[in-house]
């Protein structure tokens, strides 16, 4: 669907040229939700903007559906943009226009008639769940509602691709998940390819199929979301993943605990086996759960459990070995 080949974006700054994007190549499949994650300043926003040429790459090519669009200008470029919706962190609605007016604008741009617009706008508002807000002005809406209008506007001309520039970064947690759900629904019901950039791993976990990790203008790692979380290869990715899965024990707990402390890593379907109860039954050790977090990414469990084992030292040793043989990874904390 979208092929980025050796994309390079350079800015001439006051202190020499800045290379915002360095030779990035990506393939984004049809109907996929593709995440680009990285810290701020990593170049992800610039990279995203090369897809609809809001940012013209200084090198490389953007190929959409087999057509090289990198050199598009004028009518060709505007037609490309009609087929590519975009939503923004700050929503970017026209404050002087009502919700209806904002969405109507996108349709007017595509040359739709007044009658067509009058039919299409309510359809779009129903899709994003804002039917009663047609006459409201952006200043009267909450952040989540503004983003819904942004989504309706982006979808107005039935695009094949939706580009999302940090769509939930200005929203609270609850609103974030409702917007993400809406995006997922749109992806599934309308079959639209979604490219989403974010600095929040939680967003990636929630909706993306695949993800590319970007650092200092380069893609350092790319793969299925589950693999990236379960088995991060690059140091930068590890840091990002670790930050989203925090299992540090308080110092007090470590000191007071005399027994063995183990960290059990869960990955894949083996996480569903009753390891702990089986250990207690077989070895008669005392197990205390100290910390834990298991999440389901794309339906697959991933997480870790920190437990302490107490009992006869030799039996504890055997029990630990047994646990190690039953799960994806075992780490001895103490």
């Amino acid at each position, binding site marked *: 669907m979208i092929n980025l080949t050796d994309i390079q974006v350079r800015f001439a700054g006051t202190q020499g040229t800045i290379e915002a994007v360095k030779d990035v190549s990506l393939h984004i499949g049809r109907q996929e939700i593709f995440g680009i994650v990285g810290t701020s300043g990593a170049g992800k926003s610039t990279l995203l903007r090369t897809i*609809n040429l*809001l940012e013209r790459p200084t090198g490389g090519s953007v190929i959409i559906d087999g057509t090289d669009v990198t050199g598009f200008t004028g009518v060709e470029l*505007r*037609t*490309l*943009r*009609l087929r*590519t919706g*975009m939503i*923004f962190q*700050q929503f*970017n*609605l*026209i*404050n*002087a*226009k009502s919700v209806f007016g904002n969405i109507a*604008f*996108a349709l*007017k*741009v*595509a040359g739709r008639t007044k009658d067509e617009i009058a039919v299409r706008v309510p359809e779009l508002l129903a899709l994003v769940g804002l039917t009663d807000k047609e006459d409201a*002005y*952006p*200043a009267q809406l909450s952040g989540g509602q503004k983003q819904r209008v*942004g989504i309706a*506007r982006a979808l*107005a*001309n039935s695009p094949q691709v939706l*580009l999302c520039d940090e769509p939930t970064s200005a929203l609270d947690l609850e609103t974030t998940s409702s917007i993400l759900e809406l995006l997922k629904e749109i992806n599934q019901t309308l079959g639209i390819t979604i490219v989403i950039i974010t600095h929040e791993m939680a967003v990636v976990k929630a909706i993306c199929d695949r993800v590319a990790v970007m650092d200092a203008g380069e893609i350092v790692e790319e793969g299925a979301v589950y693999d990236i979380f379960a088995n991060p290869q690059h140091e930068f990715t590890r840091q990002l993943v670790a930050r989203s899965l925090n299992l540090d024990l308080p110092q007090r707990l470590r000191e007071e605990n005399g027994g063995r402390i183990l960290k059990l890593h869960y990955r894949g379907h083996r996480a569903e086996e009753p390891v702990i109860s089986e250990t207690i039954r077989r070895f008669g050790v005392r197990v205390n759960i100290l910390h834990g977090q298991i999440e389901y990414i794309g339906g697959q469990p991933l997480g870790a459990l920190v437990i302490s084992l107490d009992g006869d030292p030799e039996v504890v040793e055997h029990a630990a070995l047994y646990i190690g043989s039953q799960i994806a990874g075992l780490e001895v904390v103490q």
Partner: protein
Amino acid sequence: MNEAMREMLQDLLKAFGETFQMVGISLTLSIVIGIPLGLLMYVTDRGLFLQNRFVNVVGGILVNVIRSVPFVILLVLVLPLTQRLVGSTIGPAAASVPLSIAAIAFYARLVQVSLCEVSRGVIEAATASGATPFQIVIHVLIPESLPGLLRGLTVTAVSLVGYSAMAGIVGGGGVGDLAIRFGYYRYETNVMVVTVLLLIVLVQAVQSFGDSVAKKVDRN
């Protein structure tokens, strides 16, 4: 006394008529020419959709040159042009030529400033929607900056009332001219006081009206 009063009233009416004529013509022209000029200077600025350094710089210099010439000098400077355009250099219509030139330059700059307040993100969103530059101007830039455009127009109108006082130098007439002629040259303080008071009321009315309209269209 009664006779003098009537005479003064007649003078005042005539003067107000002349002021309205001068301000009206210049204000109309500053909308018709000043808005496009301000728009042109804005959209040709760095990083905008019609970036053009040449047009931007030339426009900016033109506006600055006009604005840096003291109005009294401009009045005299454009006399040949006035003669060609109006066929005379005396009267309110003639005075409207330099007034319009000054007002266009002044308002163009205010238009540009108002446009700078429009969020670049909104312009980017419109560009991403596939809008043409013309559609962005009509549906984004003008509606988004309308409150600012109206406030700028109010400021321009008030300045024009002030500038038009100097039109007396070329026989343009108007309220300001009346105040100078009677109050200053003829020591008729009461006429001067009345005219100045009326000018205050006029300026106040223009300002209030402008503010209320601007507030009405402001959706923020």
